[in-house]
């Protein structure tokens, strides 16, 4: 009997004891029902999902103090301690949204982000590689975006009335001192880094974060790829050379190497050139990348490359074209970048890096050699703290050191050397504060101490963004930016202060359903620009100044027509400067008032090809005609270019790529050079600065050898 009683007791305890009914409703902060939320007694099977009306109800046999846990994608988990004693429990819960959601406001003023394919971005990493006319050059592709001015004879990024040196490139946060390959005078240079190396590109035309210094107009921030996932060997046969690359992958690490040889010599034999080459450009380049994952979310990256390039040409005198001056140029370049990223715990992470840049130019002009060596080192340490999902804090310290040495042999066969070093110490702190999902403020300050001129500067930078509509948002940015005077001027006067710019930007952006619209209005003030005293380039001051202002429009649509993706950019620029040799404030020769471009890409599955077309237009640019009484009043013809490219995929592991720039063969003129002295009639003679060849034709065949044959190099093109 006693046993039986015990048994019953035991049975009752284990099953039938105190069923508690729990019910309630789950909503978001504004009271809208959340269907599908998971409600549970933490650590047990018991629970339920909310219905379409956001209500739930279940019974539990658990007793005592228990946690009720409610979770749903995009919301913070909710926990509440309850005491289960058989009494029904009724809950009314409003879940708090996580800020980092798809539809949260972002700071968009001045910045174009490509990559991070999961977010709604304006551009994708692959867009940079597949834009016709860009021939897989990062700057070439970004030159189709608003805010840039087409400067065909340079190939660099000229942003909002700034010259090419005002755009700085950062790889994994580290400044790259010489981001472009050398090119002959008045011929476009290419970026040293190929787009396929990067998973993300952020191109800012102003108002960028306090993390980035020494850039007056624009920051191009490139994030290199993480660990590779596939073993593969790539071979490329190009009309101008060839390359071979191999990637080897381990569980937590990957290493890849690439050797590339480029020689335009055979090509220049085929197509008539504007330039009198003695030996056309050739280069050899090797690069290597290493990735190692550490801990749970950490990664160590190393990238290094070496490049040698050279060419030799004849400069022809303008007055007497038969008088030739030989010009020889050789460049040796080495770059190493090591960086790491490590999460310290859930809220803190640390990243840092060290980069080294070696650039050596050997120029022989008319048998007299000039040598230039620049060594730059950059060390950086940044801490990031997610204080809450409403507050992100970032701060860091940096040290930049650049050593410059130039030497030449003077007319008495004596070696003349100029050497100086510019140490810059910097610190920055920046906070991103979300008042809600719809309003964010980013406020930061950057301090820099330049050891060469013994000067400390403090630069504030602020951005806000507000999203009053479901898809549309406004963004405002203000900031002060500085950069050390270029070496060519410091060589003459090492007391020159840093040049300064102030940006004011207003932006409106809508991204919805693979369509993007952006409009941006800006004003930029320049101060401390280098100015020649009485037009004498040997006497320099910081008395120059200037402004740039304008508006820009951008439209992209990948949706309306199947497999067709296109974007249209328009930029209006009004700028004047009083700097260098300018006798009066005037529009610099690199600036054009109207820039317009249309980029289209379509995949045509019938011919297994991606076809791309780019049209660019720039309004006339100013040049100074010494025969004219007024300064800088000459105007070039308009610039127009139509480029096409085709990528054909006959087999999964093979791509044939053909691109042609300036299909219509338009004779674009970028400006005029004038003779240094007038001729016998007192006239200065001119020579137009033209494209080196009307068209540039590129043909490449790319193979990929991997274990499975579905891999190809398309994203690399």
């Amino acid at each position, binding site marked *: 009997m006693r046993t039986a009683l015990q048994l019953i007791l035991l049975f009752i305890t284990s099953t039938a004891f105190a069923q508690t009914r729990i019910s309630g409703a789950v909503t978001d902060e504004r009271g809208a029902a959340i269907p599908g939320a998971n409600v549970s007694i933490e*650590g047990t099977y018991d629970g339920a999902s909310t219905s379409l009306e956001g209500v739930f109800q279940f019974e539990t046999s658990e007793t005592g103090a228990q946690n009720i846990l409610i979770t749903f994608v995009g919301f913070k988990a909710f926990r509440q301690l309850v005491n289960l004693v058989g009494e029904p429990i009724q809950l009314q819960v409003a879940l708090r949204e996580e800020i980092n959601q798809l539809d949260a406001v972002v700071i968009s003023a001045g910045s174009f982000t490509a990559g991070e394919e999961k977010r709604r971005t304006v551009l994708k990493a692959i867009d940079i590689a597949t834009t016709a006319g860009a021939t897989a050059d990062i700057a070439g592709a970004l030159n189709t975006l608003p805010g840039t001015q087409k400067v065909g004879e340079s190939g660099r990024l000229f942003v909002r009335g700034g010259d090419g040196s005002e755009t700085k490139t950062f790889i994994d946060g580290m400044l790259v001192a010489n981001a472009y390959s050398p090119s002959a005078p008045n011929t476009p240079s290419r970026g040293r880094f190929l787009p396929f190396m990067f998973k993300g590109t952020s191109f800012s035309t102003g108002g960028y974060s306090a993390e980035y210094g020494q850039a007056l107009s624009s920051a191009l921030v490139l994030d290199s790829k993480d660990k590779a996932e596939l073993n593969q060997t790539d071979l490329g046969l190009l009309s101008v050379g060839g390359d071979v690359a191999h990637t080897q992958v381990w569980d937590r690490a990957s290493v890849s190497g690439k050797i590339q040889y480029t020689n335009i010599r055979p090509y220049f034999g085929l197509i008539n050139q504007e330039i009198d080459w003695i030996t056309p450009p050739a280069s050899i380049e090797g690069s290597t990348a290493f990735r190692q994952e550490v801990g749970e979310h950490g990664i160590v990256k190393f990238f290094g490359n070496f490049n040698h390039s050279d060419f030799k040409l004849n400069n022809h005198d303008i007055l007497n074209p038969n008088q030739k001056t030989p010009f020889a140029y050789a460049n040796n370049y080495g770059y190493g970048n090591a960086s790491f990223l490590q999460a310290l715990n859930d809220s803190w992470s640390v990243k840092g890096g060290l980069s080294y840049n070696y650039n050596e130019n050997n120029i022989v002009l008319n048998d007299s050699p000039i040598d230039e060596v620049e060594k730059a080192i950059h060390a950086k340490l940044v801490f990031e703290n997610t204080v809450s999902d409403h507050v992100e804090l970032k701060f860091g310290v940096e040290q930049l050191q650049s050593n410059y040495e130039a030497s030449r042999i003077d007319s008495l066969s004596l070696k003349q050397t100029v050497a100086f070093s510019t140490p810059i110490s910097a610190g920055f702190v920046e906070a991103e504060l979300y008042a809600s999902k719809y309003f964010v403020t980013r406020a930061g300050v950057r301090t820099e101490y330049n050891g060469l001129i013994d000067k400390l500067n403090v630069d504030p930078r602020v951005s806000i963004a507000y999203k009053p509509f479901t898809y549309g948002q406004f963004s405002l940015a203000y900031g002060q930016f500085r950069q050390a005077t270029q070496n060519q001027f410091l060589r003459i006067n090492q007391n020159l202060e840093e040049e300064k710019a102030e940006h004011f930007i207003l932006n409106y952006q809508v991204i919805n359903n693979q369509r993007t619209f952006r409009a941006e209005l800006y004003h930029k003030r320049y101060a401390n620009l280098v100015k020649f005293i009485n037009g004498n380039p040997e006497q320099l001051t910081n008395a120059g100044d200037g402004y740039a202002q304008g508006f820009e429009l951008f439209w992209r649509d990948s949706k309306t027509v199947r497999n067709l993706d296109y974007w249209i950019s328009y930029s209006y620029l009004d700028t004047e400067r009083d700097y260098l040799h300018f006798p009066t404030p005037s529009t610099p020769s690199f600036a054009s008032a109207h820039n317009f471009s249309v980029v289209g890409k379509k995949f045509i599955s019938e011919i*297994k090809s991606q076809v791309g077309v780019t049209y660019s237009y720039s309004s006339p640019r100013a040049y100074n005609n010494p025969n004219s009484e007024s300064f800088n009043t000459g105007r070039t013809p308009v610039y127009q270019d139509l480029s096409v490219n085709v990528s054909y995929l006959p087999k999964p592991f093979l791509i044939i790529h053909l691109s042609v720039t300036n299909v219509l063969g338009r004779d674009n003129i970028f400006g005029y050079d004038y003779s240094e002295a007038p001729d016998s009639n007192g006239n200065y003679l001119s020579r137009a600065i033209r494209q080196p060849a009307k068209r540039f034709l590129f043909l490449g065949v790319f193979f990929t050898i991997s274990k499975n044959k*579905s891999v190809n190099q398309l994203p690399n093109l």
Partner: protein
Amino acid sequence: MKTKMLILFSFCSTLLFANDKYEQVMQTNIQSIYKAQTAEEMQQSINTFERIGAAEKSKWEPFYYASFGYIMMATREEDGAKRDVLLDKATQVLEKASAIQKNDSEIIALEGFIYMMRVTVDPATRGQQYSGLAMQTFGKALGLNPNNPRAMALMAQMEFGTAQFFKSPTTSACEKATNAIAMFDATSSVGPLAPRWGKETAMQVAKQCQ
């Protein structure tokens, strides 16, 4: 003495009962995830799996099926960005499964399935990266268990799509589909919680092959 025995016995039976409960609840819920048609039904099953997973701690199956559920939801989601969010969730819960059960052929096959679905969000941009990764992952799953019919079926589907695109022979893809069907038919006597989905995928490919 008798009492002690009794207590011991009932203790054991509670344990047994607990284990039975796991299998029983899992089986019911596995049936419902296979049958689920609407997003609500799928979310409900997923939620149950996630609750079981949180309670059991040492069982990988709840997370495996929760992940499978999110993938199924992703296959029905039109908006690419939202599909990515679901695939993020699928990855997140699958990581919990693989933390418990390392180097499991089924878990790895599902990982490959996620990569395959990533391609569909934006084939032009992601085709190269994720299709290679998916194939590699299916290969890894088959390396661990050459008779995993799901890995074989998914691989057949992926290969068939690629071959169709390049208008190259589908022979290899079709062989894989036939193999997969044979494997599905051969592996009838597995555990009650073992995955059984995927035969339709193989059948579909085989049908297209004819």
